[in-house]
C-alpha cells in the first residue's frame, strides 16, 4: 500500500471519503445532535478524539490480535476510550455533557470508528493510522459543525448559541443573533436534520461534478495543445 500518500489520506478524510457525506456512516449521532453548531462541534471533537485514539491503538496491536477475535477486541478498545472521554467531558464540560447526554456513550456504536479500525488501522502502520484518524475525524466534525450551524441559523436565527458551554464564559460574545427573526422550527426538529444533510450531500455532489467537468476540459485542452505542437 505504498501508493497512499499522506496528502491523499487527508483529502480523502475531509472530502472524497467523508464519512458523513459519502460513506453515510454515524448518521444517528450526526442527525440527532446537530441542532446547534456548538452541540455539533462538541460531539464532533469527542468523536475525533476517540477515533484518533482507537486508530492508534488498533494499529499498534494489529500484529498481535488474531483475526478471529479482532472485532470484539476493537470494540473493547473503542469502548474504553469512549468511557474515558465521557468521564472527562462530565468533569470538564459538564453542561455540554448534559446536553449531548446519551450521544456521548453512543459514540461507541458510531460505525465510522469501527469502520476505520477494521478497514484502515488494522492494515496500516501507526503514522498512517494516526493521520487517517485525524483527517476522518475532522471531516466528520466539519459536517456536524456546518449542519448544526445551518439548522441553528434557520431554526432559531442564532449562530454559536451557548458557546460558553464549550469555550468558557469569555465566549458568550461569540453568539450571533438575528433580531426579530422567527425561526423556521422544522430545521431544529428531526426532519430538518434529514433535509439539511440531504442538501449538504447535494452541494457536495454538485461541486464534485463541476470539478470533474473542469478537469475534463483541462485534459482536452492539454491534448489540443499537444496536438498543435505535434
Amino acid at each position, binding site marked *: 500500500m505504498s501508493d497512499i500518500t499522506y496528502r491523499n489520506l487527508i483529502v480523502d478524510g475531509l472530502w472524497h471519503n467523508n464519512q458523513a457525506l459519502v460513506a453515510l456512516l454515524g448518521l444517528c449521532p450526526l442527525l440527532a445532535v446537530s441542532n446547534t453548531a456548538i452541540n455539533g462541534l462538541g460531539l464532533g471533537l469527542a468523536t475525533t478524539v476517540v477515533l484518533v485514539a482507537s486508530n492508534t491503538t488498533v494499529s499498534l496491536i494489529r500484529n498481535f490480535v488474531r483475526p478471529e477475535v479482532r472485532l470484539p477486541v476493537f470494540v473493547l478498545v473503542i469502548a474504553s476510550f469512549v468511557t474515558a472521554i465521557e468521564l472527562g467531558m462530565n468533569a470538564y464540560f459538564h453542561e455540554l455533557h448534559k446536553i449531548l447526554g446519551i450521544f456521548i456513550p453512543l459514540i461507541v456504536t458510531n460505525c465510522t470508528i469501527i469502520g476505520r479500525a477494521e478497514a484502515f488501522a488494522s492494515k496500516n502502520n501507526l503514522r498512517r493510522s494516526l493521520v487517517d484518524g485525524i483527517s476522518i475525524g475532522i471531516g466528520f466534525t466539519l459536517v456536524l459543525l456546518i449542519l448544526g450551524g445551518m439548522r441553528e441559523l434557520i431554526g432559531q436565527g442564532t449562530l454559536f448559541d451557548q458557546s460558553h458551554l464549550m469555550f468558557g464564559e469569555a465566549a458568550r460574545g461569540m453568539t450571533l443573533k438575528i433580531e426579530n427573526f*422567527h425561526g423556521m422550527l*422544522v430545521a431544529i426538529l428531526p426532519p430538518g436534520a434529514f433535509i439539511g444533510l440531504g442538501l449538504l450531500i447535494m452541494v457536495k455532489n454538485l461541486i464534485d461534478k463541476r470539478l470533474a467537468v473542469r478537469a475534463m476540459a483541462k485534459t482536452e485542452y492539454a491534448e489540443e495543445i499537444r496536438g498543435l505542437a505535434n
Partner: protein
Amino acid sequence: MEFHTLSSPHTKRVNRVDKVMLQVVLALIPGITAMIFYFGWGVLINVVLACLSAVAFEAMVIRLRKRPVMPVLFDLSAIVTALLFAVAIPPLLPWWLVVMGMAFAIIMVKQMYGGLGYNPFNPAMAAYVLLLISYPVEMTSWMPPYLLAEHQLTLSQILAFKLSGILPGELTLDAITMATPLDQMRTNLDLNQMISEIRLSPLWGDFGGLGWEWIGNWFLMGGIWMVYKRTITWQIPLAFLTGLVSMATIFWLFDAESFPFPLFHVFSGGVILGAFFIATDPVTACTTRAGQLIYGAAIGVLVYLIRTWGGYPDAVAFAVLLMNMAAPTIDYYTRPRTYGHGEVKSE
C-alpha cells in the same frame, strides 16, 4: 359495402393527465367559491398567490432539469397542488409563507423525487405540514366565518395585512381571528366540559362549525361529481369516511358527552376535502382496488386517533402523509391475481 363497427368498447375514456387535472380543478371550484363567501378575499388571494408561485417554481425547476417546460406546466398538476394547498391554509397567512410552502411542495416534494408520478408524498399536504410545525401561530390563526365575525376586513385591508402584517386601526390579530371549531371542541374538552355544554356556543351549526359545514357540503358536491365522472374511484373516499365514522360512532356510543357526534368529525376541518381530493391523489395513493379500501379506511381511523389523542386539532394532512408511506406496501400485498395464474394446488 360498408360495415359499421358495432363491437365494444362503445365509449372511450379520456385518460390524459391534463384532462384529469382539469376535472379536479373544476370540481374544486364550488368549494373554493364557498370558502371565499364565508372567509372573505383572503382565500382568493391565497389561491392566486399559490397558483402563480407554483407555476413559477415548476418552470424554474424544469428549466434547471433541462426538460421541456410547456408540457409540464400545461398538465395542470402544479395548479391542483396550489389549489389544495390554498384551501388548507388560513386566509390571513402572510404572503411569504404561501410562497415558501409552494417552493417546498414543488421543488422538494415533487420535483426532487422526479416530478409528477414519482413523488411518494402528496406535495400540498407535505407543504401544509412543514408550515404547520414550523409556524404554528400563523398556521392556526383562522378568521371566523363571516356569520360570526365582528370585524369585516375589506379587500385592501386583507391585502395590506398579508403583505406587511399591518392591521387597520386598533385591531389586533386576536380580535379578527378565532379558534376553529375543532380547536374549540378540543380546548373545551380538555377543560372537562361536556359536549352538550360546549355546543351551546353560537359557533356551532347543525353538525360541525357554523359556516364550516357548508364549505364541506360544497366540496362534497365537487367530489361526488368526480366520482360520477370516474376521475377518482369511489373506494378511497368511501373507505375514508367509513373508517372515520365507525371509529367516531364506537366512542360516541360509549360516551356521548366526551366524544363528539360522528358527523361532527365528517363536517369539521379538512375531512371532506381530504377524502375526495387529497387522499385520492393518483400518484401517492394505492392503485389496487382492495388496497384503496385499506388505504382509505386507515386514513379515516388515523384521523380520528390523531384528532382525539394527538397534539394537533386536525389530522387529515398527517394521516394522509403517514398512509402515503404505507401505500407501496399495501399495493404489494393486494396485487390482484392475473387471470389464469392462480396458486398452484399441490396434488
